[in-house]
Each structure stands twice: as C-alpha cells, then as structure tokens.
C-alpha cells in the first residue's frame, strides 16, 4: 500500500510562504511527478511528505493514517536524493544494507536482499567498492538500491537525474520507469525537466509559486492546459502565445499554438515571416520566425524542411489545435 493524501498542507519559512495551501491525492501504485520552475516549492513539498521538514499547517495522510507528526523513519517511505547521499565510509553492500540493519533484520536475510537488489540494478560487481570509486550512474543505482531493499510503501525521488550527463539520464529514466512497472510501488518524483515529467509520469502535478496549477496525465496537460502557465511549461519547444488582434478575432485575450501545430510552407500560408534562426536536429527542424504583425513564432517541421536564416516562409496554424485564454490567463 502506498497512498498519500495532502490536506491543506502549508509551509512557511520565516516570512516566506513557500507553500500557501495544497490538497493532493496520490493513489497507491501511481507514478506522480512534481514539476515546475526552480523555487516553485516542489522539493519542499517532497520533503514535507518525507518528514524532513515540518508542515506549518494541514495534514499528511499516508496509507490512511495521519503521518503529519511522524518522524521520517516512521513513515515507511524511501528517498533518493539529487546528490545520491551515499554513506562515504561504507561499501556499496553496506550502503544498501543500511536500512535493513536499521530495521533489525538478521544477517542472512539482509545478504539475500542486498544480493537481489544488486542483481536488479547490475551492481553485483561493485558491492565491495566504496561510493567514491563509482561513476555517477552507478552511485545513482546504489542510491536506488538502498531505497528498494526495504520495500517502502512509496519512493520519493528528488531530482535524481540532474547530476548525470544527458545520455545516462535517458537510460536511467527508462530504468526507473521499468522499476516502477516491476515493483508497482507508488513513486513521487520531483524534476524541473518537463521531458522527464512527460515520459515517466502517470500523473503530473504542475507547481508554480507553491500552488498547484494543474494535475493530470501527461497528455491531458499537453492537450488541455488549464492556464497560460501550464500551457507554456508543458511541451518543448514552448507554446507560442499571440495577443492582440489575432487573438481578439477568436474572442480570446491570448491564443496559444504549439510549434508542432504550425504548418510550414515556402509558398503560401496564413502568416508570412522571415526565418531568424533555424535549428536542424536531424529528425526535426525548429524555425524561429519573425512574423509580420505578430512577432516571434516557433514552428516545427520535419528534418527535411530546407530553410535557413533570412528565408521567407509561410505559417498556417492548425485551427483545431489553438488554445484560447482569457484576460486572467485561464483557458476558455
């Protein structure tokens, strides 16, 4: 079991209201990602769930029991830190065994569980090494191993991949997703990277300034963002926002169109513009186009679209995919 419920949870540091009031339900077995720009309170929220910070108000319920006042060690949660936080003076084996030792398990049982975890995470050859003798990816695996051996009711990940290089990050992302499918344990994952959020999550919680902007599945957020913030944060490259006359024609204060929903042509289209920057990624080409009367618009096309800075192109937004927002930034 691993359900977590936050009821009117708030956190104040001195004068600063980091989290005004949050209500959230995390169901057993869900992979929930907290995403948002830095300083939005996502890590604080995770630390409140972990018990590493005390709440200033509200209740945290884990598996139906009030855990608000419980110490971190009593909450049955495991955490993977950004810095890995391995015990530098212990071997990999002892690092992974540590939570089991703390639980007072007997030696034979500990050894068996550590070996199991090491096999799952491909750490078998490194059990006698010290953390400083491992690479970043291996350290991250040890941290995950330490979290999985004790079979917690939920895993908490605090930006676990930010210290890894890009290629390794993609691998670890897949490994963590596979782990979730195997273990079917609740995972709460904090990241500022919306790609990680989109690829891993069952449910994404978008946070901004300590408030939840929207909760939903990755595609829900992509297709129907509730407001300008979510619309701009989810999706890469960012959604184009257009104000003024073009928006007013559609009875909106602002309209949004994703780069992938703009049709590019060298001959004709609704909007005419000049290419300022062309980014050729091979599979895709992103064009940053200065459109007359609108401003900069980003458009995506397939990798074969030959265009360079200075070229004139025509853009046609897909009318069915246009998002409309009112004055206060809410989706209409």
């Amino acid at each position, binding site marked *: 079991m691993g359900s977590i419920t936050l009821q009117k949870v708030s956190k104040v540091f001195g004068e600063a209201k980091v989290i005004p009031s949050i209500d959230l339900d995390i169901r057993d077995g869900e992979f929930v990602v907290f995403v948002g720009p830095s300083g939005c309170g996502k890590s604080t929220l995770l630390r409140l769930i972990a018990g590493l910070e005390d709440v200033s108000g509200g209740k945290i319920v884990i598996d139906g029991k009030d855990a608000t006042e419980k*110490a971190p*060690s009593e909450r049955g949660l495991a*955490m993977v*830190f950004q810095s890995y936080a391995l015990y530098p003076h212990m071997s990999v084996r002892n690092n992974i065994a540590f*939570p089991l030792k703390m639980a007072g398990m007997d030696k034979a049982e500990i050894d068996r569980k550590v070996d199991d975890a090491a096999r799952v995470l491909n750490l078998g050859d490194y059990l006698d090494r010290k953390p400083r003798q491992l690479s970043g990816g291996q350290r991250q695996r040890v941290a995950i191993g*330490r979290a999985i051996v004790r079979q917690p009711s939920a895993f908490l990940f605090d930006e676990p991949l930010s210290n890894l290089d890009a290629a390794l990050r993609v691998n670890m992302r897949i490994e963590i997703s596979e782990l979730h499918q195997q273990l079917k344990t609740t995972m709460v994952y904090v990241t500022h990277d919306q790609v990680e959020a989109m690829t891993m999550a069952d449910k994404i919680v978008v946070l901004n300034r300590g408030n939840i902007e929207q909760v939903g599945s990755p595609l829900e957020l992509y297709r129907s963002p509730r407001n300008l913030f979510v619309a701009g944060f989810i999706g890469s490259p960012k959604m184009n926002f257009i104000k003024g006359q073009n928006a007013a024609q559609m009875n909106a204060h602002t309209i949004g169109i994703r780069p992938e929903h703009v049709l590019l042509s060298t001959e004709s289209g609704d909007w005419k513009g000049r290419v300022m920057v062309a980014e050729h990624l091979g599979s895709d080409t992103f064009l940053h186009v200065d459109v007359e009367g609108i401003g900069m618009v980003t458009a995506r096309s397939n990798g074969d679209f030959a265009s360079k800075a200075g070229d004139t192109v025509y853009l046609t937004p897909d009318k069915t995919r246009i998002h409309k927002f009112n004055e206060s930034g809410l989706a209409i």
Partner: protein
Amino acid sequence: MARKVTTQRKVIMTAIAWALGILIFFPILWTFLTSFKSEADAIASPPQFLFFHWTTENYSEVQSRSNYLSHFMNSVVISFGSTLIGLIIAIPAAWAMAFAPTKRTKDVLMWMLSTKMMPPVGALIPIYLMFRNSGLLDTRTGLVIVLTLINLPIIVWMLYTYFKEIPGEILEAARMDGASLVKEIVYVLTPMAVPGIASTLLLNIILAWNEAFWTLNLTASKAAPLTAFIASYSSPEGLFYAKLSAASTMAIAPILILGWFSQKQLVRGLTFGAVK
C-alpha cells in the same frame, strides 16, 4: 595554459625547498646537538658542529636537579585534559552551528575568534587574582581550566569547518533509512566526523603542550609543566646552554614523537578547507 617546468627550474625549486626546510629545522637540530656538549663546548667560538666531546652528562644533571617526570606528567594532564574538556564543550557547539545555523551563527563564531585577538597579557592580572582567590594558582586544575578556555575558540572553529563539510543530505538519508537519532550518530555521523575530531585533538594537544604564557605565569612548582621546566634553566644566575638544550630536547621529544606518528592526520587538519 600549462606552465612549462624545466629541469633547471625544478633544481632551483628543490634547492630552495631544502634550504627553507633546513633553515626551519636547524634550531631544533642545534638544540639537540648542544644538549650533548659540555658547557664549554656549547659556547665555544667558532661553534663546533659534530666534532666535540659527546656527553650525556647534561641529561643526568638536568634529571638530578629537577624532577623531569613530574613536569612531564603535568604537561600530559594539562594538555590532554584541556583538549578533552575543550572537545566535550566544542563538539555540541560546533555541531549546532554547522547543522542548525541561525542568523547570528557567523557573529558568534567571529566573537569567539575575537577573544584570540587580544594579547593574553591583557587578561593576566584579573585571571591571576581570580586564581589566587580561588586557590587555583599552581594547580593542574587551574591550568586545565585556563588552557581549555584559551583554546576553545580554535577547537570550535576547527570542528565547525569539519562538520560544515559533512553534507546534510547524508544525515537526512540516514533518517529516511529508519535510523533513530542515536543510530544516526553512531553509524553515520561519528565515522564521518572522527577524522576531523582526531586532527583537532592532535593539534590542540600540541598547542596546549607548547603553551608557555599561562603555564609560566600561573604555576610555581607543583603544577609546573615542561615549559616551566625549560624556563628554569634560563635563570638569572647564569645561562647554561647545554643544560637548557638538554631540558628543551626532553621537553619537546614527547610531542615531536606524537606529531611524527600522527603526521597524516595533522597535515589534513592544518590544510583542511584549503583544497577542496
């Protein structure tokens, strides 16, 4: 751009390093050699380096004139005692400041350090009077108290810098892993803090061992440590270089041996924070 290191440059640097090393070591070597000379050889001009009549007479003379062992024991009690008590007070203090700092932590640290900026002689008279009135003059207890207090700022600072280097996330990880406060301290904190505590301990024993101002001013005979023992040989009735050297050698030998065997810890302690 890498700097080109030529052979010539290397030779020069090595020569300078050796020259400096010898320059620093020479007084100690000279003291050691003089301690085996007769008083006449000791003041001979030109000075004799190795070819003199070697004698251990000074050592037996020094031993018979004053009780080396009693001074030695005083030094041991005072330096170890003050360091241990200092650590017991400083560990929680440094701990609190490193792991639960407040707005005032930096000020508190600076204030502690500022007490080391005043020349000790400024506090001599009040402390002397307090010691006299409370019967602490010429007692080991008195010296342990005063050395604990004067070295406390340094102990707190050293420990603080060590503890600062222990990442808070590791302690949080231990908490998440189900460790109680006691287990967290035993299994995680202590093993990580021990090297820092050890080098602080060593450095402070050496500082306390060599402390001369307070030990000379607050003792007469009973509690006098080795510093007073050396000083007693530079007396107004005439200097006895050879005997003074023998006494000095006997006084610094124990701490030199301790330092030699704990070199690794000490170097780490002295350069701590200098190189990440």
